[in-house]
């Protein structure tokens, strides 16, 4: 596809339920990021994949959050036992592999986000 796509666009769930959010990055982009954005705030980093592996998961708030990217393309963000405080827009971004060693990274291209509402 032309850009990063995310599904579903909106998700309403009840407190305590499990949700999965999907990200389809731009074809050929090996780097994939998940961010979370609350109203009136900038996106907040959650996790970064380089290929299939999570290179940095330091932004995941707790062990209820988990993400996978088994084939190095599509990624799924999984949230267990959802809480009302998990309500936010979850953004995915992708980029080409980080450029030359020591050089700046390629531009990150963002998807439209999944709006999660936990009741």
């Amino acid at each position, binding site marked *: 596809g032309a850009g990063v796509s995310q599904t579903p666009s909106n998700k309403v769930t009840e407190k305590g339920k499990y949700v999965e959010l999907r990200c389809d990055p731009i074809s050929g982009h090996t780097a994939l990021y998940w961010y979370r954005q609350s109203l009136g705030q*900038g996106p907040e980093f959650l996790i970064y994949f380089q290929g299939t592996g999570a290179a940095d998961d330091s932004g995941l708030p707790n062990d209820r959050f988990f993400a996978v990217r088994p084939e190095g393309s599509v990624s799924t963000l999984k949230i267990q036992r959802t809480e009302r405080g998990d309500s936010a827009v979850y953004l995915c971004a992708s980029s080409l592999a980080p450029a030359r060693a020591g050089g*700046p990274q390629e531009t990150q291209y963002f*998807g439209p986000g999944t709006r999660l509402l936990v009741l």
Partner: protein
Amino acid sequence: SQKIEQNSEALNIQEGKTATLTCNYTNYSPAYLQWYRQDPGRGPVFLLLIRENEKEKRKERLKVTFDTTLKQSLFHITASQPADSATYLCALETGMDSSYKLIFGSGTRLLVRP
């Protein structure tokens, strides 16, 4: 502590004027800084990147400056148009770890009146 600050108050200007948005940071030594535009209900869209050894970068009506001494970046839109109305986010990549993750400010909303 590390912080990125952008004016939380909306900037309201007349069409044709130059909009200037500010991004200040503390306790970072960014390898580079980026500016994004975000429209309601959409993801951020990349606009410009400026590296630590660059003072200024231009793209059409956009200009970004980067002062590592003041720890500040200014983002200018000249000859502003109502279509420029959006939220503008600055983001830092410190380049200090393996992830090159972006650290965002909270954004400044720009409203250009016709």
